[in-house]
């Protein structure tokens, strides 16, 4: 509670400065956020949802915050030359929590009516649109990071796709964390898809320099009727990085949403997903991979709310834990009264490679309707001895065989990624990760 009070005080002292660096719509929710933070504080391990990740501790150090919106120049061209072969994306950049730039060619090629860019700018220029959606899903009536994020967020990214518009090319939003001091970053992402709209968004988190970072990220996704949306959240940062994110998804009738969380490299990560079916006949595919070692920690919590009938949710999370890494997974599926014909499947499989690695898993079903098919499964174990023996017998060296088995293990999740070039890239990255190489791609200076 003490650190929450520090942030409350900080906010009260700097409110004018904060508002000045942001836009009216974003400023209008700060009172509610303040109230929530005062009431619930920061999420701590005394809460069941945060049992294995004491997020409140992350907020204790004296973080720098760029409230005055000082220019923190990042040379994107130099820092990020990432080009995924065959993955032709439209690039957008966030420097810490400030929208930095997009390539102009990309901007011009967007269909009419589509907005992809700074949330702050959008809030100023299209305040009606942003007001209608901003902060509508993020739940501040419970302990979490939505409150502190809403309190301090000044900018972020907005993707708006109007009715019937299909974005062929995936959008790639690259976040580079770069600072001369240890920095806390509060980032906000808003995605609104109209009726029958389609889009794909790839989020890449990278950290430059060895400073410590704390990121809070709140993402809100509104998927309109019959829309289709794919969100890939890829984290490749470094050991000193702490990240806590909340993703809120609301799906209208007949919509399809795919979400993939990939944690290849990080320090401490906590991702929370709240997904709601608001209209019938919708599908959700929610997947995750974590390949972690040393002292790294990944905690994914998902909550899928089947409010209406005839929806399908499919979840698959896989962890490979090496050294002293620790992982946690908590997944809850709630099928409300009347949500008949729900189909829900949730799977979490984990491999611990060493004695020190630790895994905690907690799949949960809460069901109030009878005509449903729901199942969940979870396992913690090691690589299959028999498969290992089979490969050794055929002359494959132990290290290689081990790698192939691990690759196959996470391959199941990668296989679910719809974006083919990204799938290939992930396969390569994961392979490199298992070989103990750094996961940076050629020509990229990020994530060292």
């Amino acid at each position, binding site marked *: 509670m003490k650190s929450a009070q520090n942030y409350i005080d900080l906010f009260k002292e700097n409110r004018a400065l904060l508002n000045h660096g942001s836009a009216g719509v974003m400023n209008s929710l700060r009172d509610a956020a303040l109230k929530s933070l005062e009431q619930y504080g920061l999420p701590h391990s005394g809460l069941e949802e945060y049992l294995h990740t004491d997020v409140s501790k992350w907020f204790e150090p004296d973080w720098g915050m760029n409230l005055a919106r000082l220019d923190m120049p990042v040379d994107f061209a130099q820092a990020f030359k990432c080009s995924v072969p065959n993955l032709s994306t439209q690039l957008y950049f966030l420097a810490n929590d400030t929208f930095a730039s997009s390539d102009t060619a990309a901007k011009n090629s967007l269909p009419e009516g589509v907005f992809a860019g700074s949330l702050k700018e959008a809030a100023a220029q299209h305040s009606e649109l942003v007001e209608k959606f901003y902060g509508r899903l993020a739940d501040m009536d419970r302990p979490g990071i939505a409150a502190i994020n809403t309190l301090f967020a000044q900018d972020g990214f907005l993707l708006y796709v109007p009715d019937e518009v299909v974005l062929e090319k995936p959008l790639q939003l690259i976040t580079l964390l770069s600072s001369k001091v240890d920095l806390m970053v509060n980032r906000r992402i808003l995605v609104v898809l109209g009726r029958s709209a389609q889009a794909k968004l790839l989020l890449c988190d990278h950290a430059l320099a060895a400073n410590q970072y704390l990121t809070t990220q709140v993402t809100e996704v509104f998927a309109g009727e019959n829309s289709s949306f794919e969100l890939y959240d890829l984290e490749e940062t470094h050991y000193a990085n702490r990240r806590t994110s909340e993703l809120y998804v609301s799906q209208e009738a007949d919509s399809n949403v795919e979400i993939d969380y990939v944690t290849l490299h990080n320090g401490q990560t906590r991702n929370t997903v709240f997904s709601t079916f608001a209209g019938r006949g919708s599908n959700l595919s929610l997947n995750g991979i974590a390949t972690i070692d040393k002292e790294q920690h990944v905690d994914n919590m998902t909550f899928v709310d089947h409010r209406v009938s005839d929806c399908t949710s499919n979840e698959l999370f896989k962890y490979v834990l090496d050294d002293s890494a620790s992982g946690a997974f908590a997944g809850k599926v709630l099928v409300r009264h009347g949500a008949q014909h729900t189909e829900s499947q949730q799977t979490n499989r984990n491999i611990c490679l060493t004695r020190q690695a630790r895994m905690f898993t*907690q799949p949960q079903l809460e069901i109030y309707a009878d005509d449903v098919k729901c199942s969940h499964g979870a396992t913690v174990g090691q690589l299959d001895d028999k498969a290992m023996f089979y490969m050794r017998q055929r002359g494959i060296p132990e290290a290689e065989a081990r790698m192939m088995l691990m690759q196959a293990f996470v391959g199941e999740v990668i296989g679910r990624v719809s974006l083919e070039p990204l799938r290939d890239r992930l396969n390569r990255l994961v392979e490199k990760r298992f070989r103990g190489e750094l996961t940076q791609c050629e020509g990229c200076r990020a994530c060292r």
Partner: protein
Amino acid sequence: MNTETQDNSLIREISAEKYRYGFTTDVHTDIIDRGLTEDTVRLISERKGEPEWMLEFRLKAYRHWLTMEMPHWAHLDIPEIDYQNISYYADPTVKKEGPKSLEEIDPQVMKTFDKLGIPLEERLALSGGVAVDAVMDSVSVKTTFKQTLAEKGIIFCSMGEAVKNHPDLIKQYLGSVVNYRDNFFAALNSAVFSDGSFVYIPKGVRCPMELSTYFRINAAGTGQFERTLIVADDDSYVSYLEGCTAPMRDENQLHAAIVEIVVLDRAEVKYSTVQNWYPGDENGKGGVYNFVTKRGLLKGVDSKLSWTQVETGSAITWKYPSCVLQGDGSQGEFYSVALTNNWQQADTGTKMIHIGRNTKSTVISKGISAGHSQNSYRGLIKVGEHADGARNYSQCDSLLLGSDCGAHTFPYMDVKNETAIVEHEATTSKISEDQLFYCNQRGIPMEQAIGLIVNGYAKEVLNKLPMEFAVEAQRLLSVSLENTVG
């Protein structure tokens, strides 16, 4: 009459009688005043003529209980319980000393147990071969077969007697598995427990018969706080059965028991429960609150403990029979059928704590919800750092009958050892329409068809029950499901 028609008539007969154990017995019962203070604890101890160390044990627990708050994490909606409005001790035997032979027991009490179909009379030994300890309200009424058991060195008596006659064993083991600090209800029980059963199986002895305790709450306004302690010494074996019933009353009655089991080297204990406390009426009025702590410590190498439970009664059930797998190669099993109907609530499951090497545990849980009931499975599989080669398999299935009930699964897995293999699977679905259609087509009416399918669904667990109990459990499942179609 062939077997099938016999079964059918049985179901009809049972269907007509609803909760058949709902009668009360008009027997003079010595009940102490309602309320709980340190004096109450002293009074209970005094009534039972306990030694000083036992009173100390109780007082420590009571003082600790005062510092605790009732937990609220379960998926249950529990109305406020007024702990000062319960009488903590009721003794239907009245007589100053325990009955020495059957003739001394109040005939009304005898009738009660006769109605329950419990063979208190030793002559029934020939047919049943079950030794029974009957506990009415808080006091052990009669233990049968003591003599036969004593010949083998087996101790099977009420807790009250054990405190007097076997103080060393009680001092050594009481509270060694479930400490009074363990949880709110364990502290409460440790302070006010009135009686229960004590079992000691000496080294190398295989108990020749099933040991059984029947619990019955009779008096109004009382709670039942019994305590069971089973110690199975090296290379021994025992199968223990527990059954419970209570009269139909509008008020809720509290039952907070503790069961402790210590299993030493290569010993095996099988613990079976058919829990049929009064579940309340169809509007959710009345019924027993069943808040029980059951835990076994598998201390010895290659020891084995198997929990089998059929839970059909109680307005609210909150219990997690658990195994602490401490000895290398020890094995824990948990087989459960929990059926809730009307407004019943159940939050039940198990904890398997793997500490020793090569320990194994199996969890099979079958939940059935009907009416407006809520049925949750909650389980923890914990594998410690040194539990090399630990293996767990859990399966929990839920069956939903009707659209107003709920079925929930909350499994927790905490693995700290890389050689461990932990698996969990759960499914939730409604009763298969194909199966119902198949039965209907062959002239089996809906209600019977459901009974048939549910019994088939629960078979995996029912098969683990000793013969006498399996029959009772099957009947119970059918009765409890009555009127769920519609």
